[in-house]
């Protein structure tokens, strides 16, 4: 199953890209996907320190995405 991943703010910086398509070999929730990508990109935030969005709705990290969903990992931002 393929899904789109978008990265914001410091997570984009760490991933070195705005977005990418990933293929999931098995059913998994957003938290598992984040942890897997965090291992690859060394994200500075744990899974409970960010917010998750699927198709422009904020959702819980336990949400299981569907084919072609757009998943966004959203870190807190405070600059001003």
């Amino acid at each position, binding site marked *: 199953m393929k899904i789109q991943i978008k990265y914001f703010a410091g997570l984009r910086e760490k991933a070195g890209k705005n977005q990418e398509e990933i293929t999931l070999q098995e059913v998994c929730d957003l938290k598992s996907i984040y942890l897997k990508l965090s291992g690859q990109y060394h994200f500075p935030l744990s899974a409970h*320190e960010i917010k998750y969005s699927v198709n422009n709705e*904020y959702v819980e990290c336990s949400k299981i995405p569907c084919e072609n969903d757009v998943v966004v990992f959203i870190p807190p931002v405070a600059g001003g």
Partner: protein
Amino acid sequence: MTISITQDELYKRQIALVGESSFLQIKKAKVLLVGVGGLGCPALQYLASAGVGEIGIMDFDVVSTSNLQRQILFDISDIGKKKVDVAFLKLNKLAPFCSLHLFPFALNSLNAQEIISSFDIILDCSDNYKCKFLTHDYAFLCSKILIQASVYQYEGQIQVFDFSKQSGPCLRCLWSEMPKDRCMDTCQEVGVLGPLLGVLGSMQASEAIKHIIKKEHLKNGETLFVDLLTNSFEIRRFKKLENCACRVVE
């Protein structure tokens, strides 16, 4: 040479846009800006020049050299001066009919209620979680309209919370706990695109004006994401948290 101007002449384009009765509402409005930094500078200029009747300006800091890249109210001659004092002088020249109230100190739990309750709309232009959550919580307690923005490098977010109507989620429905201060790098460490602050600060002013004249605006539970690297504007929605404190007040 003294040039005398009239309000009708100064606000001719504004009145042409919104009409006499809406402009009267703008003149009656009281808006507080918390933070005169990258967001606060453009927001202040647009609110004052739109004809907002009373503006509160809150910031404890002085102008520093590194501010000038993005804090467009200030110039080299202002370095070392209190931001609220410089803002007062410059806005007086831009909008002489606007009544300015200066608060040259930080918002804290002792002064927040008294100050926030004196205004209709609060613009959170601060740069740290502690101030953002404090401003939010007192805007909620005082049933005010809060317009909040934050930036990181090329990206920003803006949210509007209308607590004068007890509907829709609050910030704590999204972030029930305040993020740790050092959980992400700050603008000081990673930099920020100056024009991004111009866009977000101007949007805060725009949302405030639209609220005053009762035009379509961002709603509670919506976050507008602005990304100047990819030139994208996207709204993401969130719902009330089941056990959030904002439900207890209803």
